[in-house]
């Protein structure tokens, strides 16, 4: 099946965290996944979680320069969701009914394995962040997650100038790094 330029553009834009692209892919594919999950012993929440996790896989793939999209986004998402949902069903030992068939599925096992690895790394950082406490957590999030500059951060947290905020940020960073590597060794 040929992949259109438009499809490839959409795929790249997902990797750039483009809101419009996310919305387009969401609109196009959500109900398919929703039907699939709900018709296979899932709930509304399960459908959302599975779909969003598949979107994460798509995002990670899009950011890899060497990855080449070989099928339509819809097929890819469906394949990932199917795999993820089956795994979850097996894991929770819910009654496993025959999962309905779909005409086209691609192999995604390796991609999901890769995704699980990234998720573990993400969780390592998340746990370290959870342990660092306030105000460090908010300070570091403001800089690295919300990408605020030091001047904005200083104003937000009530520091008198950007330099003081910066010093505090680095003090927090040193602590976070210790927590992160402690967590990293445990994992």
């Amino acid at each position, binding site marked *: 099946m040929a992949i259109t330029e438009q499809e490839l553009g959409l795929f790249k834009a997902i990797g750039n965290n483009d*809101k419009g692209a996310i919305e387009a892919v969401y609109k196009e594919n959500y109900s398919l996944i929703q039907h699939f999950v709900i018709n296979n012993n899932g709930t509304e929440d399960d459908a959302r979680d599975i779909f969003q996790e598949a979107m994460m896989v798509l995002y990670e793939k899009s950011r890899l320069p060497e990855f080449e999209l070989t099928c339509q986004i819809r097929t890819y998402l469906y394949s990932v969701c199917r795999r993820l949902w089956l795994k979850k069903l097996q894991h929770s030992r819910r009654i496993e009914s025959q999962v309905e068939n779909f005409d086209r599925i691609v192999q995604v096992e390796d991609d999901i394995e890769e995704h699980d690895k990234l998720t573990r790394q993400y969780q390592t*950082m998340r746990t370290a962040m959870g342990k660092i406490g306030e105000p460090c957590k908010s300070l570091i999030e403001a800089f690295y997650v919300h990408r605020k500059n030091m001047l904005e951060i200083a104003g937000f947290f009530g520091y008198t100038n950007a330099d003081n905020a910066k010093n505090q940020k680095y003090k927090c960073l*040193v602590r976070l*790094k210790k927590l992160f590597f402690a967590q990293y060794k445990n994992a």
Partner: protein
Amino acid sequence: MEQFELAEVVERYLTGEMNPEEQRAFEEMRKNNPELDQTVVEYHYFLEQMGHYGEIRRFKSNLYDTHHTLQESGEIKELPLTTGTRIVNMWNKYRRVVAVAASIAGITALFISGMMTIFTPKAPFRDIEELRRKVSNLEKQSSNQRAEFNKFKTKIAPGSDVKFGGTSFMIDPKGYLVTSAHVLKGAKKIYVQSIQGEDFLAEIVHQDANADIAVIKINDQDFQSPKQLPYGFTRIQTDLSEAVYTLGYPKDEIVYNEGYLSARTGLEGDTMSCQITITANPGNSGGPVFNKNGEVIGILNARQASANGVVFATKSKNIFHLVETLKESDKDINIKLRNSSSIKGINRTQQVKKVQDHVYMVKVVLG
């Protein structure tokens, strides 16, 4: 060099913010100092992970927002339940009503036939009248009975030491509520009472005395979860002077109050809370603080005794934090906080009408 200063130098080196000269000097130092070299390698990995972490968080938040936007615009709809489940649901929902109706019918029938056997052998004239009176009495009785069933009898055992603790509000339709941790101090049993006056048994899921927040869950078969909460939660800092309002139970009935944000920090510069100028009384603790968009910005928890109208609220980012911690520690707890309010843009009176159903009185039975 202090640790944090080193961190700054390394980050500048890794992000390429150094000028060529500085960079050469730093690389020379790296070569001659294996310890520094190791630190740089560590930071390189750490900052890379930090970068990924940030990217994933940004992407996730976009996904979350998109889901809500599409749900609100109706482009994503919940699927209707399949027929089988719908009937089971209806049975669950109306089981009580059916039981009450059936027992009233049963009692009435027995009573009438009992009356019949007692009165039939006697002289017919007066007795018929009497019987009619009795029946109408009975009717009154059974309508009283019905009224009583509808009135939600209190579930709290008589003689229990009830302290009307405070206020709580729902954060997830599955029955999760938050309140102030101090409200639950010494609690043996906790009940929450809805605005309709119905009591539900609840249990503590988690409490954080430091931030003064507790999550409780309604654990009562009579509780019917709402489909969706009308309000969302915001992490964004509220501006000084911005209007806020709250709902709470300083008395047996829900009470509304409004005020404004007067300081971004709480008592003695506490950054976890903020200061609000509003009228609050004992019992308001644990109540939600909303901004004009109907988003929760905090939880009321204390007032300053020496000053009038100075009230402190725990910021809502602590709720986010607590929910995230809970998710990590217990996989079964699945609390989702809404980011956006569906009551944004409608007037205050209408907002309050929608919000009040989800604000509960907390009754604490002391152990």
